[in-house]
């Protein structure tokens, strides 16, 4: 900090700050109607990022070792000896890896949904949580994108799927849903990374201005020379607007195409037209739940109570309740059609789910995805209880993970030729890699939380600028000015 700034008078506090003492019941806390000086907010964020206690480093060490065990150890072992070290077998040629892939792709829908969809629909409560969820999108896509590679029999030949001019004159096969998948994920990863980065530039400039040393150099580089001039802001806002509109359909297409990896096949139980919307709904359901889980943890550990308030989780809780309804609808629509048809193989599959070896997983899935959200999330007190929300959202993610597992791994066990039916149990290698994947996601997030401002300060400030408390009758009512 320079002398100059220390002696500088503070910008005057906005008028509505007076309302703090009055706090009427309908005051919407999620709008952060108690603004603080901008500089304080900046420092609040930056200091939260630089608090790295012993616990933090222990966590990083644990996560890093798990990542190393999963990717270096288990994956390396698999590459050395062959796919056989995984538990997959005829006829279940796809197993936990693909289930993980679908699950993490699903988690990646969090950021886009919250950031882009809510941005387009001007849901103001989104502002403090966009960055955190966009980071989830990018990191979970990285984790998800690794799984197809892990899953390859010859990982070292993965680049044969990339379309480029080559000596073999042979291009990839665009008839294959896997190519669509790759294209979609590449587009989505590029888009979501840039979409994370663009709104970050002003915050990088902010961070550049109030840090020193290596952080300043890093932030300075990432800020690209941002000064906050009108044209810079204008270009940025236009680009964000375009991104918000473009990334939404990409998001929908990504999980739809992932679902088509299954829907396009002749596999009984997979060959379903409803898989597209069903998967997308499930993805948003689990993605938003994961956002709540992560933000609750971040809020607690980084002491971001000012930015992340129970009201945000209240709003997100309503959202996941709605998506629980939607997921249930799609799940039931899919289930009842197949059940009613009574096709022998499908019957066997359903029997396996309802009464067979998969039953435990199946009922757990239904419990976490339907029973728990429906019975709790209608209650405002529960939605505002951080502990309850943490447990519920973790449950939903377990449920959604099971759903992915059931679809990928257990539907393959029974095909049209009963002679070829089989079973599948994941091996230790697959479990270690799955744990490694979770750890990688956590590690990326934990490390990034110390490098990237977890709350888009300028957006919050912009929000606070556009909100005011207006007396109507005897109450102060929050009102919004549309600045865009």
């Amino acid at each position, binding site marked *: 900090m320079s002398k100059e700034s220390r002696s500088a008078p503070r910008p005057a506090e906005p008028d509505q700050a007076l309302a703090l003492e009055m706090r009427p019941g309908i005051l919407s806390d999620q709008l952060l109607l108690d603004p603080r000086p901008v500089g304080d907010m900046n420092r609040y964020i930056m200091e939260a990022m630089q608090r790295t206690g012993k616990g933090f480093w222990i966590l990083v060490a644990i996560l890093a070792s798990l990542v190393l065990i999963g990717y270096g150890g288990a994956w390396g072992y698999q590459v050395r000896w062959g796919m056989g070290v995984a538990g997959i077998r005829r006829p279940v040629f796809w197993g936990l890896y693909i289930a993980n892939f679908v699950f993490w792709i699903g988690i990646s829908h969090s950021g886009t949904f919250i950031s882009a969809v809510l941005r387009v629909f001007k849901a103001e409560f989104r502002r403090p949580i966009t960055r955190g969820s966009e980071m989830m999108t990018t990191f979970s896509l990285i984790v998800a994108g690794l799984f197809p590679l892990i899953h390859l029999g010859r990982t070292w030949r993965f680049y044969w799927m990339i379309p480029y001019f080559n000596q073999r004159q042979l291009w990839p096969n665009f008839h294959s849903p896997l190519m669509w998948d790759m294209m979609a994920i590449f587009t989505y990863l590029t888009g979501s990374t840039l979409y994370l980065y663009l709104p970050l530039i002003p915050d990088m400039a902010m961070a550049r201005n109030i840090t020193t040393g290596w952080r300043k150099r890093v932030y300075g580089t990432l800020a690209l020379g941002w000064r906050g001039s009108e044209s810079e802001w204008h270009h940025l806002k236009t680009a964000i607007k375009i991104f918000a509109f473009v990334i939404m359909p990409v998001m929908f297409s990504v999980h739809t195409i992932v679902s088509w990896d299954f829907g396009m096949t002749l596999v009984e139980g997979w060959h379903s037209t409803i898989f597209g919307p069903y998967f997308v709904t499930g993805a948003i359901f689990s993605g938003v739940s994961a956002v709540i889980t992560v933000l609750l943890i971040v809020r607690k550990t980084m002491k971001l109570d000012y930015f992340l308030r129970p009201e945000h989780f209240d709003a997100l809780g309503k959202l996941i309740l709605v998506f629980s309804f939607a997921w249930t609808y799609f799940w039931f629509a899919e289930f009842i059609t197949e059940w009613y048809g009574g096709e022998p193989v499908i019957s*066997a599959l359903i029997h396996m789910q309802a009464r067979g070896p998969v039953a435990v997983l199946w009922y757990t899935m239904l419990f976490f995805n339907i029973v728990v959200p429906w019975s709790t999330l209608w209650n405002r007190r529960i939605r505002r209880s951080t502990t309850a929300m943490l447990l519920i959202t973790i449950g939903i993610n377990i449920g959604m993970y099971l759903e992915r597992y059931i679809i990928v791994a257990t539907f393959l066990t*029974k095909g*049209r*030729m*009963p*002679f*070829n*039916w*089989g*079973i599948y149990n994941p091996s230790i290698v697959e479990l270690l890699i799955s744990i490694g994947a979770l750890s990688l996601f956590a590690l990326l997030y934990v490390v990034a939380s110390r490098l990237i401002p977890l709350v888009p300060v300028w957006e919050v400030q912009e929000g606070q600028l556009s909100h005011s408390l207006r007396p109507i009758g005897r109450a102060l009512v929050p009102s919004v000015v549309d600045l865009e």
Partner: protein
Amino acid sequence: MGKKISRRKFLKVGATAGATAALVAGCSSDLRPYRRSLEPPLRSPEEALPGEAVWYASTCGQCPSGCGIVVRVIEGRARKIEGNPEHPLNRGRLCARGQAGLQALYNPDRFPSPVRQSSRGSRDFQAVYWDDALDLLAGKLKEADPQSVAFLGGVMSDNLFDLASRFMKGTGAAPPVVFDLLSALEGRTTLAAASKALFGVPALPVFDVGQAEVVFSFGANFLETWLSPVYYGRSFGNMRRGRLRGRGYLVQFEPRMSMTAASADEWVPVKPGTEGLVAQAIGKIVAERRKAANVAGLYKDVVVGDVADASGVSAEQLGKLARIFDTVDHALAIPGGALAGRNNGLEATLAVQALNVVAGNLGQPGGLSLSPDVPSESLVTASVPASYADVQALIERMKAGQVQVLMVHGANPVFELPKASGFREALGQVPFVVSFAPFADETAVQADLVLPDHTYLESWGYRLVAAGGDRPVVSAQQPAVQPLYDTRSTAEVLLNLAQRLGGSAAKALPWKSVREHLQSAIGPLQALPGGNLHAASTDAFIEEWQSHGGWWTTQEKSGAPGASKEVLSSTLVVPNADFAGDAQKFPFHLLPYPSILLSDGRGANQPFLQEAPDPMTTVAWNNWVEINPKTAAKLKVTTGDIVKVTSPQGEIELSVYVYPGIRPDTVAIPVGQGHSDYGRFAQGRGSNVMDLLAPLTEKAGGALAWAATRVKITPTGRKATPMLARTESAEGVERGFRDAENPG
């Protein structure tokens, strides 16, 4: 099919076939693929061009039946065995065991050189030089009283049997005893004895299944291992779309649904030991329907109702079956192994053969004939296996210390004989045991000296096709590759030993080489009329003989037997079968059966045979005990559970396979697993059912009554780990075959 392939190209030694990688060759039309060649090998046979395939005709040695094979050799290495399209026995076809023969040749667990063992069973094999080994053996033979030298043979080529017989005779010892488990399970001795009794010739019967309209098979698993499975497999195909009628009808009578029964149109699960009675009952009804006077005496004492009670086959069904048998012109009855494996085996076999007499099919198309005589005096009689009684006599001699030197070739008696026979203990009484096994089998491990023979793909020889085939065949065996290791053919070893011993032995084996012996044996065939080979000189004839894979007549020629009137006119009583073990204490009949893949255990060291699933249970790499679902439910066991199978003679542990096609009072166990030695692929898999068998013999002929033991089953509460490996789905198994056969 195969016949259309140019013989010139296919068979001649030195003839060629394109061998360059076809995917590469497929691109251009102007380049002749034959002119391309791969890299030359370091050591290649002189007649071979690098990269080009050479086909050597030879004879399969995986079982005693003697199918003709051609071996595809590229760069001095055998790559594929196929059936010899010219060979009258198999006509280009070959069974699973024949196909896997290369894994005997290239088995990683072969003896690379002769070895000695400091103490028997130590498996501490020390390589010795051939000269030293032969000196040692010759010394032992000289020391020993000729009477105390014994030769135990198994599956061996007939030239070796000839040399061994001459050798033993020359030294003044008893002739070789030939015993192998597969032949015993086929009931060869009993079949020959029945032929002797009924037709006056101790020949193996040949059944023309291919032209029969109705075939009643009494326990003959002729599509699996029985006598000549490839010949009968071909015949079965012809029967299904035969020349006479649209489709033949096969009925299989046996307590367990074998693969043959699965291919049959009807499976009749008769009570073990009553197959002969059922044949008699059918014979009686047919004879009555036909008013056949010639067999009237035969069935005098047969009461159909009693048979129905004893066998569990209702009188109506017997009547129906008899009607089917009676109505067609070409009906055929086949007596198989299992019915010969009891103490009433000979009578039961005769009862079935009598059915053929009733049907009047002797020597007819679709009927019964006898395997043709050996065509030339220069060839000794084919190595007819000895009965179990002979082996028992040998064991007694060994126990009494009357055997000083025991030579074992082509057999693995420690594994193949019932444990209760006491062979293992008797072996301990023999001061010097020599094994000629190429692999460290259970017997070789108990030997002092191992003089490893070549595998059949490395040696010279001939084989007289005794079982199956419609004409006399002298099948040729020649090396397809140079010997891999420092092994020596036992024929050559015997010649060498004879030289070393001198005297009468040397006189008995005057030939300098195996080839010379072959020439003396095969040469005279040239003069015989109707042969397939036309050569000017003896040398050329031998060469032809080798390149075509054998000598045979161009016309079908098999003995039309005449049935003995005495037998037909006297009453044939099939006595009740006796079973070892008390029926209360040991409630189940034990039915061992030869595995279609491992045969009597010989194939257990060939990974392709282990990996190929058993046709009925789809189990690979292990064995199991088959139990009827109802019985299994009573015992509270299911597939994969380990149970203890106990007979009066011993007990073994095995995984259960719940087998819907078996009588509830019977359990079946395949033979072939349970090796304690015999290489990495065979060791430690499953259990050997021979440990359970009572050493009973068939009363009249002395054959091993291998299907006459009772057992009890005790669950152990354990599960097999890894679980019983099978290719079928554990859940999918419940589904019917309608899905598979016509799902659309």
